[in-house]
């Protein structure tokens, strides 16, 4: 199978997952009744299209999703499942807001700080995995909660971060706006995009995210470092045998993944349209990075498009509420998409058979690009040899 065919089969598999998700969502809407499920689905699928005022919001929310998607995808490439994007996003947001609101730093300093904050939160799972062999999934989930509680307590107890500090009638359950704190320079520049798109949501954020996606693609595909990371993901033992420092690569991969999620927080909250709310609820932005990465099979450039898609149905879902359907229907659709992506490789093998490209056994598919933990990929790789017996 050549490369072109392979990627088009990936695309078809992704589309199958999406259609399955949308059908289940439609089924749910029919099942719970309410008015006009079909019209609701129409709203869901059209309100985020270019030309509508919501399009700016789609691109605005796509920017952090690209980053969390890159974060999850980058870790996948090294054979790690970064379910901690949510906590890294939260800690990154906190550092960005702290630097911007309290220390009045310019926006790029805040963004670098956010990357550092996320990187620290990514370091721990990587470190524990590399040196103590503690499953990174468990650690990441723990750090999601630790980060969330710590950030909420910190923000609530740093008065200059709250509107009440600047105005006696200000609220205390979310962070102050940058203008209110006297630091409009902390906002990511709009560079005229808000006027061009006619939406206050638009700014340079999405452009920064796309540039970073290209940078990640270059790192993964054009550098020795990226090659080593991918080698570790495909077969840890083989890469150690080849002289690659697997421990270092696991930690670095999680640190970079964390930094990418941290920047997502900066892109989301340094926009001037969203404020950080103090509540105990894990940031959905981090979890939505998982379907973004899965739909694109972790390809950095594909992630740009899958992020726009996930943002698109989220924005459509908000509009859908006017017909009295809960936005949870969107969460169900996304969950079903992930569920179907989990057996992407089966779907792909099936497709290859149907198209007739692959005459061999479905089981003889090469090792998945999204290899889970180290041990699993080893088994996948030794399969063909065993079968020859």
């Amino acid at each position: 199978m050549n490369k072109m065919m392979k990627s088009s089969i990936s695309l078809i598999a992704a589309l199958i997952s999406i259609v399955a998700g949308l059908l289940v969502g439609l089924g749910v809407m029919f099942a719970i009744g309410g008015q006009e499920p079909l019209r609701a689905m129409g709203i869901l699928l059209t309100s985020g299209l270019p030309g509508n005022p919501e399009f700016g919001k789609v691109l605005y929310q796509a920017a952090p999703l690209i980053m969390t998607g890159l974060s999850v995808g980058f870790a996948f490439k090294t054979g790690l499942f970064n379910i901690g994007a949510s906590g890294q996003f939260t800690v990154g947001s906190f550092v960005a807001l702290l630097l911007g609101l309290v220390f009045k730093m310019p926006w790029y300093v805040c963004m670098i700080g956010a990357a550092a904050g996320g990187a620290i939160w990514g370091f721990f799972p990587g470190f524990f995995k590399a040196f103590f062999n503690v499953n990174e999934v468990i650690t990441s989930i723990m750090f999601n909660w630790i980060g969330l509680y710590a950030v909420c307590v910190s923000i609530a107890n740093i008065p200059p971060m709250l509107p009440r500090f600047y105005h006696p009638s200000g609220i205390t359950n979310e962070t102050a706006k940058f203008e209110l704190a006297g630091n409009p320079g902390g906002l990511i520049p709009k560079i005229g995009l808000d006027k061009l798109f006619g939406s206050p949501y638009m700014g340079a954020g999405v452009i920064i995210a796309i540039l970073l996606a290209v940078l990640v693609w270059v790192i993964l595909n054009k550098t020795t470092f990226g090659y080593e990371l991918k080698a570790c993901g495909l077969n840890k033992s083989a890469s150690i045998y080849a002289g690659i420092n697997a421990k270092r690569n696991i930690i670095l991969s999680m640190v970079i993944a964390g930094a990418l999620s941290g920047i997502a927080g900066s892109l989301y909250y340094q926009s001037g349209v969203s404020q950080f709310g103090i509540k105990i609820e894990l940031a959905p932005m981090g979890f939505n990075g998982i379907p973004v990465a899965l739909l694109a099979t972790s390809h950095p450039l594909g992630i740009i498009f899958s992020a726009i898609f996930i943002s698109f149905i989220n924005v459509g879902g908000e509009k859908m509420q006017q017909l009295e359907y809960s936005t949870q229907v969107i969460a169900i659709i996304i969950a079903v998409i992930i569920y179907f992506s989990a057996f992407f490789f089966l779907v792909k093998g099936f497709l290859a058979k149907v198209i007739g490209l692959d005459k061999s056994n479905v089981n003889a598919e090469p090792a998945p690009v999204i290899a889970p933990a180290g041990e699993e990929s080893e088994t996948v790789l030794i399969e063909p040899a065993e079968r020859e017996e």
Partner: protein
Amino acid sequence: MSFFDLVANIGSETVLFAVPLLLVALGGMFSERGGIINIALEGIMVVGALVGCIVMITLHEHMGVWSAANPELAMLISVGAAAISGLVYSLLLGFASIHLRADQTIGGTALNMLAPAAAIVVTWAVYGRGQTSINFGNVAWRRITLARVGGDPETAGIFLRSVFKSMYVTTPLAIILLVLAIILLYKTRFGLRLRACGEHPQAADSVGINVYKMRYAGVAISGFLAGIGGLAFTLAAGTAYQSTVAGYGFLALSVMIFGNWKPMNIAGAALFFALFKVMGNYAGVIPFLPSFEGIKFNAWIYNILPYVVTMFLLVLTSKRSRAPKAEGIPYDKSTR
């Protein structure tokens, strides 16, 4: 509050919160001993608690007299509904990861995201639009009181009083299920076969054990127990179900790892974790703990405690930690 009252309160609440952890961690153990990583425990708990609460309230509203007369039976029906719904939901994970050989972690994550969303949609559908919580505070028969078992609350000693302070049918049930789990895992043919499938499925298959069937059984048992655990958590946590179990499914996973995939160790680990959770609630009145007065949301500082302790323990015990060898690897007959 006197010192004895404090100890008694902490003791009874520790048991209360250890029960869901124990049940769910035992569930995770059965699944992983069979070779399937069940990260969907959190979602299964949410589903089990949802169905359990709906059944409990339905019994209360439509068969109130009968339920009040037979509270244990009515509670057992609710628990049974939670268990069955958890089992059915867990089969989604089984289907994806056993038959379709999907990535178990990703499949489980999907189920975790699906459960709370579906629970809210169901809550809306059953109790009306905009309802986000199911209140069961007026279901008086859900608790086993001291009077019910023939004791006198006025004259009973501090021990009995604290035992029955928050006693639900799930507490004795959990102890029974723990014993059953030990017997099932170590003393039966099924248990031996299940463990074989988690260690070396190819070898198990070669002596005629149906690996797929055993793994389905492991996942189903985990769904059954996690469903009960979800209801047990919701009963322990308050008087309303809010489509969440606050990360307990994941804590249970760490309890399982810390308990080294062995039932008795898991029971000890569950008590230990619950103690740390409860200590946070009583931080203000425990003399040797700082209470962080003057800090807003100081209770949240102690909410971090169980997670930090978990991290420390996982790191410290990582050397002797021994996971089932074949867990996480989809079984492919052709690799035999």
